[in-house]
């Protein structure tokens, strides 16, 4: 059952200078916190993830998005660790976001929701740890946008983490990645059902636009070879081409399915705000052009993980992070896992990654 914590003090101040009130954070926990509070692990989810990292997602009825990694006897072992995963600020699964009620206007925020940053997300997670009375987590872990949050933890709250595992991520969003996000946002905004973000007033939602956004994004999460291996030029439930714009090819059908399913569970405005937060992420410019300065006060052990087939967050970006950590003498490990699954490898069955995470965590736990 998702728990909700309400931020009691008046305003939750954001990087933009604006604030939100009230702030509610929806979160899940798995396992038990030990007496010394030394076994807590904070999982940060990616762009379209949620707090249901493990077990069955009660909404989709499918396994949690990281159930392959998190659970009894798994690398992030629920018998051993106390695992916390919260829906990000700006999300649409219970934490305050654009579809939440704005108390001033008595209607959902929509586009009146303030633009938020990765740093704001992390700040809200700090409140959650305070609420749970956990002074320091054993590790903070996440991939992609979750990895950005991990980097932000390392930079802004180094005393609250014993170790960190940023996966398939980067210290800034590249120009190409911003470009892809912009395509997605424009697709949403071009849908007449979007109504300038006020679709709730019209009892509708920009499903077509959001679906196209998801289809484009989904391609960037895979790889050419993964698509080729999975679908090739195979036709979908038909013997020959129909000479029409039907989804003749399996890959088309697959993408349409991804799009249609996504809109059932995701809020279009949330998608706009969260992609924006990723675009704004840049630990380099925030530290006067020197990434290493982001980690001046970091005393944690860090394990950076990348995948060779990830072209959205390529290994070179992880290496830049490792380089910066090295130059500050941080206790850093790095592994570039051989995989042709693309960016989404971090969500999939990657035994080498499981081994890395299990080994690193166990060593941190006994340390």
């Amino acid at each position: 059952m998702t728990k909700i914590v309400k931020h009691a003090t008046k305003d939750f101040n954001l990087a933009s200078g604006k604030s939100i009130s009230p702030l509610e954070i929806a979160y899940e926990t798995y396992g038990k916190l030990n007496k010394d509070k030394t076994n807590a692990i904070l999982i940060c989810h990616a762009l379209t993830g949620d707090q249901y990292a493990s077990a069955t997602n009660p909404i989709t009825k499918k396994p949690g998005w990281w159930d392959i990694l998190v659970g009894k006897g798994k690398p992030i072992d629920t018998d051993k660790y106390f695992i916390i995963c919260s829906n990000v600020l700006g999300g649409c699964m219970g934490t305050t976001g654009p579809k939440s009620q704005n108390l001033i206007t008595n209607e959902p925020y929509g586009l009146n929701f303030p633009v938020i940053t990765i740093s704001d997300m992390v700040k809200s997670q700090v409140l959650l740890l305070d609420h749970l009375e956990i002074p320091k987590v054993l590790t903070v872990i996440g991939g992609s946008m979750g990895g950005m949050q991990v980097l932000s933890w390392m930079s802004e709250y180094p005393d609250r983490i014993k170790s960190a595992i940023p996966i398939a991520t980067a210290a800034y969003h590249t120009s190409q990645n911003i470009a892809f996000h912009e395509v997605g946002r424009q697709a949403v905004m071009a849908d007449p059902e979007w109504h300038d973000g006020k679709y709730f007033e019209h009892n509708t939602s920009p499903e077509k636009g959001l679906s196209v956004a998801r289809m484009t994004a989904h391609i960037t999460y895979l790889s050419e070879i993964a698509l080729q291996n999975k679908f090739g030029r195979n036709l979908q439930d038909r013997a020959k081409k129909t000479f029409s714009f039907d989804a003749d090819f399996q890959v088309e059908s697959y993408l349409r399915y991804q799009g249609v399913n996504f809109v059932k569970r995701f809020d279009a405005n949330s998608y706009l705000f969260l992609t924006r937060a990723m675009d704004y992420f840049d630990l380099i410019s925030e530290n006067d052009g020197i990434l290493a300065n982001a980690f001046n006060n970091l005393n944690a052990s860090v394990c950076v993980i990348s995948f060779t087939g990830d072209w959205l967050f390529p290994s070179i970006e992880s290496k830049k992070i490792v380089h910066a950590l090295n130059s500050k003498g941080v206790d850093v490990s790095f592994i570039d896992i051989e995989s042709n699954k693309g960016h989404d490898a971090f969500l999939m069955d990657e035994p080498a990654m499981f081994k890395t995470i299990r080994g690193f965590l166990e060593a941190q736990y006994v340390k």
Partner: protein
Amino acid sequence: MSNRFDFLIIEEMVELRSKVLDIGCDDGSLLKMLQDKKKVDVRGIELYSDRVNLCLEKGLPVVQGDANFDLEMYPDNSFDYVILSKTLQSVNRPRDILEQLLRIGKKAIVSIPNFGHWKVRLYLALNGQMPMTPSLPAKWYNTENIHLCTINDFLSLCDEINIKIIKSVALDKNGAQLNFANRIRSVNLIGEQAIFLLKKNND
């Protein structure tokens, strides 16, 4: 690590509680030993991800990387010792790597298999083929050892690029130490491997 006699020599060379980078750290055996016995603050670089995972399981901070390309990411003098054990012969540019070692480390420890060993010489002389010995078992076309050298070659390179040899130890096939001081010729003949403690000549 049963026949890694060089590890014991390296351990003796490293001072207590110093900071060490091991390049090509394999499964982390040497680093673990230095951490346990000498309270060393250890770091490693290893090319292969499965070996990196073995290091992580031991709790050792190891970065997957290639000695040929990734040493540039380390700042000057960031380690007390940089170790390159039996790896110099397999890098693209041994001379550049040696210079990198002493840029990153205040001192460097380098161990090499000795291609001047009598068995190697005899193999080539008698068979007229590229030598293969128990410590150099691969064929010429599939060996990783692309820049093998003799102890003498190594000494001249150090001289040429102004590296000071603080200590040198050669080992025979049983791991017994050979007297280096005034018998270079014979050491180069019967030493199967050698370990050197190095620093920049101008320090």
